[in-house]
């Protein structure tokens, strides 16, 4: 990796952390989402006579981004839920200017000796799947339970009227499809009409919605302990069922929709979520949010396809998302709505 990037990061961190002798070493890029470049590095410094070496993560904006996201939102969400005791990395520093590293970025703690599940894997968690699944849905319930003002995120983007937050999200993602589709999308258009014709009941409460809570966006260790919830870049205010619908979407089920996220049976997952969130689940409302989740997926994958096809971002993940994931979610929507 560029020594220049490493040196500039070192100077910046020494300044903001107030540690003049801080050294940055072993900076290397790692896979980590389509909206930000992700790098791992070691920070070495002396504190009160003790040599400290700490693994940190740099998340820098891409030159182009799949979905426009605010890195300040992501940073604040890390801070809020880290403080609340959820498995979330400690955020260290946020830089919104482009003078230091050419683009805005933030730095956070690296959660070491962990792995991430891949949707390419038929069984990413093996014998750990039930243990991981129970934590996965419990932590999602805790996010839903959090009071948005008490965690300091009451001003996040989103709709605070429980009766209108569904419409806010449908409008948002229809706009993305309008802007980014490169070919007519009859299934997405039909789904949008269906969602508008069949509105869900008002939200049981307004929560922080993670926005992309799924397989691939959390780390777990060899004992099956969930250690880090990542990628809060789409966090917003809204109906907590939005996150639940996304988390149980068939795309993340590794071929077995009866075990959402490739982990535990659906009924157990929903029961854990209800207990931890304190929200009584309305199954008809959840059904609406499941349709919405697949439509939201379609919108995201259309954006990915657009970025790739226009040559703005040739990351192969964009090609995969814009092809495999789009085809997958179109089928989910057609099968669900075509038999409704």
């Amino acid at each position, binding site marked *: 990796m560029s020594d220049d990037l490493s040196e500039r990061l070192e100077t910046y961190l020494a300044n903001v952390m107030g540690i003049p002798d801080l050294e940055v070493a072993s900076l290397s890029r*790692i896979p980590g989402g389509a909206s930000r470049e992700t790098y791992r590095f070691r920070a070495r410094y002396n504190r009160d006579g003790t040599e400290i070496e700490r693994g940190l993560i740099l998340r820098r904006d891409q030159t182009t981004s799949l979905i426009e996201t605010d890195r300040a939102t992501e940073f604040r969400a890390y801070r809020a839920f880290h403080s609340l005791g959820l498995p979330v990395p400690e955020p260290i520093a946020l830089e919104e200017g482009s003078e230091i590293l050419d683009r805005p970025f933030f730095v956070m703690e690296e959660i070491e000796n962990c792995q991430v599940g891949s949707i*390419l894997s038929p069984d990413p968690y093996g014998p750990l799947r039930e243990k991981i699944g129970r934590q996965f849905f419990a932590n999602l319930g805790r996010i839903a339970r959090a009071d948005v003002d008490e965690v300091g995120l009451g001003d996040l983007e989103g709709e605070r009227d429980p009766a209108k937050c569904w419409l806010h999200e449908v409008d948002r993602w229809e706009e993305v499809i309008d802007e980014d589709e490169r070919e*007519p*999308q009859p299934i997405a258009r039909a789904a949008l009409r269906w969602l508008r014709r069949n509105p869900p009941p008002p939200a049981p409460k307004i929560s922080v919605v993670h926005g992309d809570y799924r397989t691939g966006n959390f780390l777990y260790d060899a004992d099956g302990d969930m250690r880090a919830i990542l990628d809060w870049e789409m966090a917003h205010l809204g109906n907590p069922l939005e996150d639940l619908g996304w988390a149980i979407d068939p795309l993340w089920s590794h071929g077995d929709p009866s075990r959402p996220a490739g982990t535990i049976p659906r009924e157990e997952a929903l029961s854990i979520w209800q207990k931890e969130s304190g929200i009584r689940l309305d199954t008809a409302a959840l059904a609406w949010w499941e349709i919405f989740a697949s439509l939201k997926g379609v919108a995201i994958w259309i954006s990915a396809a657009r970025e790739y096809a226009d040559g703005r971002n040739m990351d192969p993940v964009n090609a995969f998302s814009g092809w495999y994931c789009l085809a997958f979610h179109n089928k989910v929507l057609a099968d669900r709505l*075509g038999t409704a």
Partner: protein
Amino acid sequence: MKPEADQILMFSAIKLASEYAPQIPTQYGQGMAQVVAALMFMSAQEYDRAADIRASENADMRALFKLLAPQIADAGLRRDLETAASAREESLRVSALNASNEHLRKILIRLHAHLDETGADTRPVWDVLKAMAARRTLTLPG
């Protein structure tokens, strides 16, 4: 040509994923190489079926338009349905089939919206959409 392009893509994907990617020194490079291998695997599937998918979709949409056009009161939409239903492919190149496909999809969206608005039976449209979605589904390696 033997080997065909799909076999070349498939075997290259296997070599990339199993032999070359693990030798890339960085985690980022290894991860991206695995994604590229998956894309090659998907491209191998698409090579054999691409023209057939598009030609089948276009034929299904034209048949649907022919079936439903007589029931449509909107004169402009009915005329577009009838015109599209009577057209034929001029080339089997994927780019040409895509151009027809996009034109037909636009009309399909108008038709479906019209049926939704008038409360008419949309099952024939959904049958076509389900078949379209099923044909385009891809299988992942492993």
